[in-house]
Every structure is written in structure tokens, then in C-alpha cells.
């Protein structure tokens, strides 16, 4: 009988395959590899979701019984699922395969990193035994996925804006900068809504568990820093008319804050350090 860890190993490989197909399609301007890449993404998403469900069942069989959203490994796997689903949606909605080129590596890297960390199913420590855990982790990681895709789009923006002249270069396939700018904005709004919800569910949970909804713990503070960066992006864009390069720079800065909130804070003392 295959285990969830086994599924996730295969999925990592399929995400990697999608990355390669997207790249081949882009460089050689061929349709077939792009279709294969999309198909690989669909398979990977299905497997990713299936693996999470299986892991949930496994945790019940072990007698712990909790949603697989409780440690670094499980959060990485869930993050990969969110990112892949989001870029596949964008690809279908806006007919833009190129988004997969920059977003699929993020899903792949998340899974690859997951394979390096402890993957055993552990029971929940008392602090995590709460229904808020599920709401908090899901909202946060959907938000992170939005920011990750926005980051990918920002990179595309820099490539496209940096290419000198149109015609006969591989940057032709990248949509117009205005489109990228708008997509970036859309993804940031999406991420912002979910990050807000994530911070709020975290605050309500903290009030439930420790009697304060905000305690300036490093993870809380870094999530607020992330929120503030994206809030300033939204204001600069909607009210000051910032577009293009400056928005892409802010979007990247925001994603760096996301990464630090996610991983960097584990290096600092606090309630959220997973180890």
C-alpha cells in the first residue's frame, strides 16, 4: 500500500517535469510541451490533494487524528498545492501558459524542500489542539500562494520590460507588460485578502489560547510587516497611480517578507518556531 510520503515523492517529480515542459515550450516556442506541462500540473495537483487526504487518514490510523497542517513539512506540501492550483486557474482563465513557467518552479521548490525536512506524522502538542489551526493555516497559505504567483509575475515583468525590441526573441511569448501589471495587482489583492484572514484567524486563536489577540511575537510581527508592505503597494497603485516596475519591485519586496515570515522566523525565538 502506497503511503502519502510515497505519493509526495512522485508528485515532486511531476512538478519538476511540469517545470521542464514549461521551459521547453517557452524556449522552443512549441505547443505540445506546453500542453504536457499543463497536463503534468493537473496530475500533480490531483496527487497532491490525494496525498494530503491520505496523510489525514494515516494520522487517524496512527491514533492522532489531525488535519495535515501542523508542521513545516505539511505546510510546504499544502503551499505547493495552493500555488499550483492558483497558477493553473490563471492559466485557464486568461489563456496564459507563461504563468506556469514562473509559478511551477515555486511549487516544485516547495515540494523539494519538503522532502528535506522531517516528514513523520506527529501528534499535536497541546498548543496546536484547536479548530482554529485549520482555518489559520489554510487562509495563510492560500494568501502566500497568491503572493508567490504575484512574485512570479513580477519576475516575468522584469524580463519582458528588460527585453529591448519585439520580434524573434523568446520574450515575445510573454504577454504585454500592462497585462502582467494587472495580473500582479490581482494576485496581490487575492493574497492580501487571505493574508488578512490568516492574521485575523491567528489573532482570534491567540486570544483563545493565550488571552491576547496580539502580542508582537516575531511571527505575528513579520506577518504584519508583510501586510503593511502589500497595503502600501495597493495604496500606491490605486491612489498614486503607480504601475509597472515600481509595483513589481514592491511585490517582490512583499514576497521576501512572506518568505521571512514563513522560514526566517523559525530562526528567531517565539511561539511559531516549528521545531
Amino acid at each position, binding site marked *: 500500500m502506497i503511503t502519502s510520503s510515497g505519493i509526495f515523492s512522485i508528485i515532486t517529480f511531476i512538478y519538476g517535469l511540469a517545470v521542464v515542459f514549461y521551459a521547453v515550450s517557452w524556449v522552443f516556442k512549441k505547443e505540445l510541451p506546453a500542453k504536457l506541462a499543463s497536463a503534468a500540473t493537473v496530475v500533480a495537483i490531483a496527487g497532491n490533494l490525494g496525498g494530503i487526504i491520505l496523510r489525514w487518514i494515516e494520522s487517524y490510523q496512527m491514533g492522532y487524528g489531525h488535519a495535515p497542517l501542523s508542521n513545516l513539512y505539511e505546510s510546504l506540501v499544502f503551499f505547493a498545492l495552493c500555488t499550483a492550483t492558483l497558477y493553473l486557474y490563471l492559466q485557464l482563465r486568461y489563456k496564459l501558459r507563461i504563468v506556469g513557467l514562473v509559478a511551477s518552479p515555486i511549487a516544485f521548490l516547495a515540494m523539494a524542500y519538503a522532502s528535506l525536512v522531517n516528514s513523520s506524522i506527529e501528534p499535536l502538542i*497541546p498548543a496546536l489542539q484547536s479548530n482554529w489551526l485549520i482555518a489559520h493555516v489554510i487562509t495563510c497559505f492560500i494568501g502566500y500562494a497568491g503572493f508567490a504567483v504575484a512574485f512570479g509575475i513580477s519576475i516575468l515583468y522584469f524580463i519582458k520590460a528588460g527585453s529591448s525590441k519585439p520580434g524573434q526573441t523568446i520574450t515575445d511569448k510573454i504577454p504585454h507588460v500592462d497585462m502582467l501589471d494587472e495580473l500582479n495587482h490581482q494576485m496581490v489583492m487575492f493574497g492580501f485578502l487571505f493574508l488578512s484572514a490568516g492574521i485575523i484567524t491567528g489573532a482570534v486563536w491567540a486570544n483563545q489560547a493565550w488571552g491576547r489577540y496580539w502580542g508582537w511575537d516575531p511571527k505575528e510581527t513579520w506577518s504584519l510587516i508583510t501586510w503593511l508592505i502589500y497595503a502600501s503597494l495597493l495604496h500606491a497603485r490605486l*491612489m498614486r497611480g503607480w504601475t509597472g516596475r515600481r509595483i513589481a519591485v514592491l511585490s517582490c519586496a512583499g514576497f521576501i517578507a512572506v518568505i521571512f515570515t514563513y522560514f526566517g522566523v523559525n530562526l528567531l525565538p517565539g511561539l511559531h518556531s516549528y521545531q
Partner: protein
Amino acid sequence: MNQQAARNNPVNRVWKFFASVKLSVVVLLALAATSVIGTLIPQNASPMMYMQRYGDTLYPVFKALGFFDMYHAWWFRLLLGLLTVNIIVCSIDRLSATWKIIFPRKINFQASRFRKSKERVEWREGDAPDQLFNTCKEFVSRHFRHVSTQDTDNGTLVFGEKGRWTRLGVYAVHTSILLMVIGGLIGSLYGFEGFTNVSEGEAVQRISLKNSNKKKTLPFAIRCDDFSISHYESGMPKEYRSTVSILKDQEAVHQADIRVNDPLRYKGINIFQSSYGRIPEKFTIVFADPGSGIAYEKQASLGSRIEMPANKGTLIIEDFRDNFRLRGHNIGDSFICRIKRGGQEEDGQTGNFFALPLNYPRFDRMRQGDFVISAKNVDFRYYTGLQITRDPGVPIVYVGFAIIIIGCYITFFMQHKQICVELRGSREGTDMMLACISPKNRPGMKAASRKVALQLQNQLQSRER
């Protein structure tokens, strides 16, 4: 001239300063940047620890800048205050304009905006415009409010509009931030955050307040009836549980189990399971003569003052620590003691403290005192560490939470939308044009136009059948 004067009026200039979105962006980024400091420097730790870490030069500088409690420092509060004023002034400044858009006296549509828009979809119907008009109008009025029509030289225009009110979403978001600020203020003015340790069987009414030396007396006493820990097979902690009773005039009026994530809320005061520990109740202190090896034993408890043999002074058991760290090494459970020599003045501060680790009975030899002192036969009693808070601002903050989510959703994903369907008569029938536009001009509008056009085409076909 008058206008010039009005612009230079100091009140107007201050208003303009606070109404600027540039200020918002600067303050938001400044808050983000300065918040980093408090995640790198541990907050509200002991001065000792800061001295060790930052040394003589940096310590006073950091202290003066309030870095050791930076989220309550004057300059950080000033930034928060600036943001609050900025939000209020911005919202008031723009609300009147938005209000006029949302509730106009008369709605005007400009056909040219739709005809030129990139989002438009065009097709041809076989029938004449007047045969199609009613269906079109019905269709638009089913999906949009504020429908109006306008005749042109060779046909008709049908306009529709919806979602004007969604422009209020952003004001909801700003109001929610203000609610959180107000709730936070109420909490810090009328609430408290304290902690106390209660050993099994004991009751406590006075608690210590967090980040200060102050104490607070609760309107009731908390008695710990029982404390228990359970573990998973792997040894990981599974549950910390305190059974506590609320006492009023020595009488239990309420009893409950408190677990992590499952606090007791009693009359607006919340009691949380926060930590636990052990206190030694009774134990034996052994004085071994390093020369003869003769050992003297004495019974003791925390705070005991024990006369040492041969009038060598008084041993005072000051404290007990789990996992005591001595010069960076964890020496485990230890008693902290000092010795008072006969005749000397009582002075708790200058006495030389030393540790007696339970796991290393011969540890005290290093002190080279008159005796090698150690402790044994320790009877432990558990105590539960409770966090006790009251925050009357929470309901307001929670309302803010709800509103910000709804407001963000409205602002980001709902839009003020306008539609125009043009019927232009031609020899073959009617040239149709449909365009959905939004003042925010999202890329999705083209797709939306196509979708709506398709629905209308189906509608027109089914009319024919």
C-alpha cells in the same frame, strides 16, 4: 486671490498633509521597517541580559530609543497615531466625492466610452432593432440596476449599471482599522494581562502584571485543585490540565478544567493554562565536612534558614529553579542559596548566591566553603502557571476583524460595473454592440463582456422560437 489665501491657510495645509496618500504609503512602509527591530531584539527581557548582549556602548543607546519595548515606545505610537489621523482625514476628504458618485442626482451615460472600449463585443442579428429592443432591455434590467435607454439616429442604446455602493468598501476597511485601534486602546486602558503560579491545594488572589513590577488583586481567588500532564507514547506532551475553583469569601462558587486552548472565562476575566512547574515542599540538606567527611542532615523547606554546624553561619534557601543555567551550562533542578555569617547585617542583595544542583551532590565542593552542601529527598508539589487577562476591547476589535474581511472582499472583487447594448439598424438586420466596463478596468472585463454577450445572444434566439 481668495483661493490662493485659502490654499495657504495653515489649517488647510495641515489638512492637506494628512489627507495625502503619500503620507499613508510612507507611514505604512515606516511601520513595516521599524517593526523589524523588535523581532531582532528580544522585547521586555531583563536589563542583565541586554547588558550582556549589547555591551556598555549600545545598551544605553538602545534603551534611550526604547528598543527594548519598542512597540510601546513613543515614536512607534506616534507612527500609529499618524496612520490613524491619516486614515480619518483621507476618508473624510474623499467621502463626499464618492458619495456624489454613489448617489448622483442624475445618471449620465456616455455612449462613446462604450463604443471605443476594448472590451466591446460586436455581432449581427437578422431582425430589425425594434424587434430586438424589448428583449435587450429586459435582459439588461434583469442583470443591472439603473437601466436607461437612449435613441440614436439609426437605433437605440440600452445602458445598465450596478455596484455603485461597492465604492464604499474601502471606507469599511478604513473604519475597521479605526475600530481595531479603538479596541486596542480600550484594552490597554481598562484591561490587564497578568500571571500567577498556584500550587495544588493553594488559592491565589493577588497576581503579577506582565512587563511591570505591579500586582493586582482579583475580585476572586483562584484555587488549583489539581494539575496533571498526560503524554503521548513518544513522550511528547498531550495535555496540560488544571482543575481550578473560583473562590469568593473562601467559598467555591465555580469549578472548571482549564487546558491549553480551552480557558476559563469568568465574569469578564479569562484564565489560561500557560505553564507549569514543581516546587519542592520538603527536603533534606546535607552538610558534609570536607576534612572528616562527617555529614550532618537537616530538614528544610523553601525559604528556610538553617543554622550550620559549628556556628559557621546561617544557610538561607532562597529559591528553586528547574533547569538552572550556570555560566551557560544547564545544571538541572537546583536550589539557590546564600550563607549569612553571624553578626553581619542582613542584606539580601550583596549575599553571594550559589546553586545546589540536585543531580550533582558533590557540585558544592567547587565553592571550597566550610561544608560541602547538597540537597536530597525532595518532595515536589506541582504548581500551575496561569495567565489571567481582561480585555474589554476585544468585541470591538472582533467587529473590526469582520468588517475588514468583508470590506477587502468588496473593494477587491466586487465592482462598479456599467453595460451598454447598442442596436444599430442596417440592411441585413441589426448590428449589435455590447460592452461591459468598470471604472477599475480589470482585464477580466473583456471576458465578462463576451460572457454577457453570449447570454444575450441566447436570449435573442430563444425569443425567436
